[in-house]
C-alpha cells in the first residue's frame, strides 16, 4: 500500500517537471525570435552609425571590422538565421550608408564588389563557426541538464528508499523488542507454572513412597505393580517439569559469559550423570577440548543432555561416546558421537524441537526437551548445532561455536 502511493507520487512529480520544461521551451522560442530580430536591428544600426562616424575620418574599409564584430556578437547570442540576416544586412548597410556615394547602391566597382563578397563570406564563416560552438555548448548544456535531472531523480529515489528502510528498520526493531518482552513474560510464566506444578507432584511422590513403605505387605501383586506405575509416572512428570524449567532458564538468557575450559565443563557434566553412565555401561572418551567464551552452567547442561541422549538411544552393543573438537578458521567444532541406533535424515531437524521425540517402542521415553535445550544453549552462544547420522550407524552431534580470542 505504502509503496504504490509512493510510486504514483513520483510519477506525478515527473509529469509536472516535463510539462514545465515544455512550456518554458515554447515561450522561449517565441520570445527568442523577437529578441533576435531586435538584437540584429540594434547591432547593425549601431554598427552603421559608428561606421558613418568612422568613415568621416578614416578609410571606409576600417568599418568592415565594426560590422564583423557585430556579426560575431550576433552569432554568439542569436540563432543561425539571425546571423545570416545580419551578414546580408551588413553588406547592404555598408554599401548603402558607408561607401560613397552614400544612400545609394553602386555595385559596379569591381574591387568593392570583391570586398563585399569577402565580407559576406567571412561573416558567414564566423556566424557558422560561432553557431557550431554555440550548438556544441547548447547540446552539452542540455546533456548536463539531462544528466543532472537523472541524477536528481536517482537521488530522490535513493532518499525515499533510505527513508523507507529506516522506517522498516524502526518497525522491525520495535517488533523484536515486543517479541523479546513477550517472550520474557512467557518464559517467566512457564517458570512459575512449572514451579507450581512441582508442589502437588511432590505430594503424590511422598504418599506413594509412604504407601510402598508401609502397605506393600497388604497389597497383592497387581496392587504393587499399579503403585509402581504411579511412581514411574510421577518420576517422568518430574523430569519433564525439570526440563521445562531448565529450558525456561536457558531461554530467559540469564547468562554469565566468561572464558570457560570445555574440558572441565565436560568433566562436570559427566560427573552429574555418572549414575546413568554407569547403569548403561557406557564408555565416554573425552579428547582435548578448547577454551571458549560462554556460560558454564549452560555448557554443562549441553554436554549432559547430549550424552544422556546417546545413552537413551543406545543400541545392543556397548555404548561408546566420544567428545572431540576441531578448529576451523574462526570457529571451533565440537563433536559428540556415539555408536547408538542412529537417526534417519528425515528427523535431523525435528529432533531439536520441543517435545519432539522419535517414536519407537525400542527406546525408553525421555522428557523430549533435552535437545531443544541444547539448541537454545548453542544459539545463546552464537553457534549452530546439527546432527550427522543414519539409521543403524550411530550419530554425531556437531556444535559450531565462535572461537574465543
Amino acid at each position: 500500500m505504502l509503496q504504490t502511493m509512493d510510486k504514483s507520487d513520483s510519477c506525478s512529480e515527473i509529469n509536472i517537471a516535463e510539462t514545465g520544461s515544455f512550456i518554458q521551451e515554447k515561450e522561449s522560442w517565441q520570445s527568442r525570435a523577437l529578441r533576435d530580430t531586435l538584437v540584429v536591428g540594434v547591432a547593425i544600426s549601431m554598427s552603421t552609425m559608428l561606421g558613418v562616424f568612422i568613415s568621416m575620418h578614416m578609410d571606409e574599409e576600417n568599418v568592415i571590422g565594426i560590422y564583423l564584430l557585430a556579426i560575431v556578437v550576433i552569432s554568439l547570442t542569436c540563432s543561425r538565421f539571425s546571423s545570416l540576416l545580419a551578414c546580408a544586412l551588413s553588406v547592404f548597410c555598408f554599401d548603402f550608408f558607408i561607401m560613397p556615394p552614400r544612400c545609394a547602391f553602386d555595385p559596379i566597382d569591381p574591387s568593392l564588389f570583391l570586398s563585399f563578397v569577402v565580407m559576406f563570406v567571412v561573416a558567414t564563416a564566423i556566424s557558422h563557426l560561432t553557431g557550431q560552438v554555440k550548438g556544441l555548448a547548447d547540446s552539452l548544456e542540455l546533456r548536463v541538464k539531462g544528466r543532472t535531472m537523472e541524477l536528481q531523480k536517482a537521488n530522490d529515489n535513493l532518499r525515499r528508499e533510505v527513508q523507507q528502510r529506516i522506517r522498516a528498520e524502526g518497525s522491525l526493531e520495535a517488533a523484536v523488542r515486543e517479541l523479546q518482552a513477550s517472550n520474557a513474560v512467557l518464559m517467566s510464566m512457564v517458570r512459575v507454572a512449572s514451579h507450581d506444578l512441582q508442589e502437588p507432584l511432590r505430594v503424590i511422590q511422598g504418599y506413594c513412597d509412604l504407601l510402598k513403605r508401609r502397605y506393600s505387605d497388604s497389597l497383592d501383586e497387581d496392587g504393587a505393580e499399579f503403585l509402581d506405575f504411579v511412581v514411574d509416572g510421577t518420576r517422568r512428570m518430574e523430569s519433564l517439569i525439570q526440563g521445562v524449567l531448565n529450558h525456561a532458564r536457558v531461554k530467559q538468557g540469564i547468562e554469565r559469559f566468561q572464558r570457560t575450559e570445555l574440558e572441565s565443563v565436560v568433566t562436570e557434566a559427566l560427573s552429574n550423570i555418572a549414575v546413568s553412565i554407569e547403569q548403561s555401561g557406557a564408555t565416554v572418551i573425552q579428547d582435548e577440548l578448547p577454551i571458549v567464551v560462554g556460560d558454564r552452567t549452560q555448557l554443562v547442561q549441553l554436554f549432559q543432555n547430549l550424552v544422556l541422549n546417546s545413552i537413551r538411544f543406545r543400541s545392543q552393543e556397548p555404548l561408546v561416546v566420544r567428545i572431540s573438537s576441531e578448529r576451523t578458521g574462526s570457529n571451533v567444532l565440537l563433536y559428540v558421537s556415539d555408536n547408538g541406533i542412529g537417526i534417519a535424515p528425515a528427523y535431523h531437524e525435528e529432533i531439536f524441537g520441543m517435545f519432539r521425540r522419535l517414536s519407537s517402542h525400542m527406546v525408553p521415553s525421555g522428557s523430549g526437551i533435552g535437545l531443544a535445550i541444547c539448541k537454545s544453549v548453542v544459539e545463546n552462544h552464537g553457534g549452530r548445532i546439527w546432527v550427522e547420522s543414519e539409521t543403524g550407524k550411530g550419530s554425531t552431534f556437531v556444535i559450531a561455536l565462535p572461537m574465543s580470542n
Partner: protein
Amino acid sequence: MQNREIEILVVEDNAADARLLKEALIDTRLPHRICRSVDGEDAINYLRERRDEGSGRFPNVIVLDLNMPKVNGHQFLKLLNTETGLPEIPVIVLTVSQDEEDVIQALQYGMNFYLRKPPSAVNIGPILERVVSLWAKA
C-alpha cells in the same frame, strides 16, 4: 538423649504436606510432639502467645514451608528475627523450590537447615537428630 520429647512447630498451609511430614516424623521414631500453624502469621501469633504466657516453653524446632498465603516463609523468618523475648529456635525450611535465590534469601533471614519436598524419615531424620544433639549440649 532421646528421652526428652521434641516439640516441633510445623508451619505448612497444605494439609496433605503437613500429614506427610507427620508420617515422616513418626517413621524417624524420635519422640516428638507436633504443633501445626497454617501460615506464617498463625505461627508468629502462636509463638507470641507462648512468650506472653511466661511459661518459657517454646517449640524446639520449626519446620517451615516457604510458599504460603498471608505471611510466607521468608516473611516469617524476618519476623522471627526481629521479635523480642523469643529464644533461638532452629528452623528447617521445607520447600519444593530449587531456586538458589530462594535458599540464599532464607539463609540470610536465619534458616538453619534446608530440605526439599517430599519429606521422608530418610532425609528429615538425620537433621532432627542433629538438632536434638545440639539442643542436648546447650
